[in-house]
């Protein structure tokens, strides 16, 4: 079949069963957008900034497990998606980013809107391609999707010069299969290692399971639950695995690390065996590495061999897919009954994983999140931005199903949550989508209110407005003598000398989120009283389409527990 490069790009997307593409047009991608104009098989969503297109593709991918796709132009269009690509890379999210490029003949000449995007994206993509001729376009499109979704998933960027989009291939057909000699992910774990792991589990006195994002990517949540229940081993999950194990399960001991549950941190520290599955021992989890779980042997199941013994020396590495390995392990592991260790862990849990000082007079951010949990029956897809509200969401919204918490864990990208929520509205799950945000983060991609409004995307925006960049302010309060340098969002360069402090400040908060939402034709509410929280949430969530709900919460609330950076994880600060 005769096709242009631009037609091949779109046909490849259709063949890969892509349902939605997020992006932004520009000079060198006009040929591709021209083909999109007549395409019925997939939906294109025009964002208001390329960064948001990448995050939306990411949010779609996180909520479904499918490859998310974004399409942008060369130069600034492509540089604008770098944060989105890096976000996906750090959290192993399958994504294909298509960027236009100046004509091949102009490469390297500083042409208009030229940037070396393959060079720039190399360290933040799983792989990338510059398409040099139309003859290699079909196979590279196929490879891009294959690489993005297999093995440890990740973003793949494909850079297409405009002359490739405009040239014609006489005998086009999309390849059925793909084989890359240098890329063969190992899926089945080594049998001997699996047997050894089963023996180690059998011999352990104080075992704990530490599950990470790999559980979600591999779809291994059922096997994880089965393993935990068969062996009665307590389970802690990293931020990336919240929802990968039922948050209300008696064996669940919360997320570990800097803002983790005390139960999780104490259990890890005192354990004699950690069974780590698809987790990578991030510094926010381990705290001071040399004092992390000093008596524990470690079994580490991971599809990426480089994750093993990268931070913590591993005693029993098993490289492969978590679901397959857990299935195999379940066949050989012996049942274990709850014992004194379980009793001790339950004591650490102390009835609940997290608690804060409740108030009848002050609107607390944690209370708003608990209310959101209640009103959504814990069954929503929740996206977050980054900061205090993100940690409170992780602590007080009990996630019970995989792919229901979409959060930028690795890169920690403010501005992620709102566009990611747009992507999640295409998940096809029928779940309510809540974009949980702080008043700082939401402003990093606030322009997407236009995309949400015009496409009637049912995003329920919850803003916890404490008028601060709260997480940095918290560090300033605790470790920098309350010197709130550039973290007050009411303040500006004009009021530094005269600042009376947050309680007495009379400056108006800018922007007026309710008026702003209304200007985008999005209904909005502002809540300042505790008694209005539940009714407004009920009303907002019951509405069709988008809604913005702003909660004016106590300004100087802190996230606790907290392990100061660089300390061992049982060195815990409490409010």
């Amino acid at each position, binding site marked *: 079949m005769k096709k242009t490069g631009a037609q091949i790009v779109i046909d490849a997307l259709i063949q890969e069963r892509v349902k939605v593409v997020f992006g932004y047009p520009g000079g060198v991608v006009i040929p591709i957008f021209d083909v999109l104009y007549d395409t019925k098989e997939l939906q294109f969503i025009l964002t208001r900034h390329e960064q948001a297109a990448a995050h939306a593709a990411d949010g779609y991918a996180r909520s479904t497990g499918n490859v998310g796709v974004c399409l942008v132009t060369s130069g600034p269009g492509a540089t604008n998606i770098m944060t989105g690509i890096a976000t996906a890379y750090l959290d192993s999210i399958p994504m294909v980013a298509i960027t236009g490029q100046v004509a091949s003949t102009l490469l390297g000449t500083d042409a208009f809107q030229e940037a070396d995007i*393959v*060079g720039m994206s*190399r*360290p933040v993509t*799983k*792989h990338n391609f*510059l398409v*040099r001729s139309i003859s290699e376009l079909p196979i590279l499109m196929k490879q891009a999707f294959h*690489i993005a979704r297999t093995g440890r998933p990740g973003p793949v960027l494909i850079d297409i010069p405009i002359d490739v989009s405009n040239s014609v291939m006489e005998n086009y057909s999309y390849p059925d299969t793909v084989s*890359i*000699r*240098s*890329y063969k992910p190992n899926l089945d774990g080594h049998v001997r290692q699996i047997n050894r792991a089963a023996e180690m589990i059998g011999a352990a006195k104080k075992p704990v399971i530490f599950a990470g994002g790999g559980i979600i990517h591999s779809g291994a949540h059922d096997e994880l639950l089965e393993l935990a229940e068969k062996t009665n081993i307590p389970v802690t999950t990293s931020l990336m695995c919240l929802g990968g194990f039922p948050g209300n399960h008696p064996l669940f001991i919360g997320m570990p690390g800097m803002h983790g549950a005390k139960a999780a941190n104490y259990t890890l520290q005192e354990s004699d065996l950690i069974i780590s599955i698809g987790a990578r021992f991030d510094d926010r989890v381990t705290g001071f590495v040399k004092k992390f779980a000093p008596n524990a042997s470690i079994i580490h199941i991971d599809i*990426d*061999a*480089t994750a*093993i*013994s*990268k931070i913590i020396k591993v005693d029993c590495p098993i490289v492969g897919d978590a679901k397959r390995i857990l299935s195999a392990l379940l066949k050989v592991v012996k049942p274990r009954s709850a014992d004194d260790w379980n009793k001790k862990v339950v004591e650490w849990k102390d009835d609940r994983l997290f608690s804060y000082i409740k108030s009848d007079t002050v609107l607390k951010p944690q209370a708003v999140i608990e209310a959101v949990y209640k009103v959504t029956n814990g069954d929503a897809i929740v996206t977050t931005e980054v900061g205090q509200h993100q940690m409170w969401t992780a602590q007080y919204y009990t996630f019970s199903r995989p792919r229901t918490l979409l959060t930028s864990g690795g890169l920690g990208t403010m501005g992620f949550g709102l566009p990611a929520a747009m992507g999640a509205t295409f998940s096809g799950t029928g779940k309510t989508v809540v974009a949980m945000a702080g008043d700082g983060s939401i402003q990093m991609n606030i322009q997407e209110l236009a995309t949400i409004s015009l496409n009637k995307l049912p995003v329920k925006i919850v803003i916890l407005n404490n008028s601060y960049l709260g997480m940095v302010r918290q560090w300033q309060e605790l470790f920098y003598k309350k010197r709130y340098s550039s973290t007050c969002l009411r303040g500006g360069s004009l009021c530094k000398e005269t600042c009376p402090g947050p309680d007495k400040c009379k400056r108006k908060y800018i922007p007026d989120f309710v008026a702003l939402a209304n200007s985008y034709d999005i209904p909005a509410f502002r809540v300042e009283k505790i008694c209005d929280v539940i009714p407004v949430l009920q009303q907002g969530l019951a509405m069709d389409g988008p809604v913005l709900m702003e909660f004016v919460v106590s300004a100087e609330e802190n996230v606790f527990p907290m392990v100061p950076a660089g300390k061992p994880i049982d060195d815990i600060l409490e409010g």
Partner: protein
Amino acid sequence: MSTRIISILLENHHGALSRVAGLFSSRGYNISSLTVAETEDPTVSRMTIVVEGEAGILEQIVKQLNRLIDVIKVIDMGEREVVERELVLVNIDSTKANRHEFVEIASIFGAKIVSVTSGSITLELGGEKRTVEDFIALVKPYGIRELVRSGTIAISQRK
């Protein structure tokens, strides 16, 4: 710290070299030498890298190299019997008066005299890194005008 020779087979196409180099530079690993050229299969290049680092870091390097999509195979030459060679070309101040001394040095090391002018002489030596370094030390006092080393290449000993 130890020195390790890592041999990499990788796809012979644009961008592959920069992926490997980028991996080293972004992690602050120091490359002592790097050579790359086509193999008997024109679609495959072989890169030989000499790198210094702690054993744990070197293990990470090998794993991370393996993770690169363009990398077909990584061989840690430290675990094998290998023959290693390096080539050096050196241009030295030399006049008719001392030329015979270079003929002597060349014959001791098995070096070749590549060219001679009225004021200089160019020698070529292939050998193990240590031999090459001894050779350089010996000719240095005469006044090296220019020196070019290829970096190490290595091949494993098959039985």
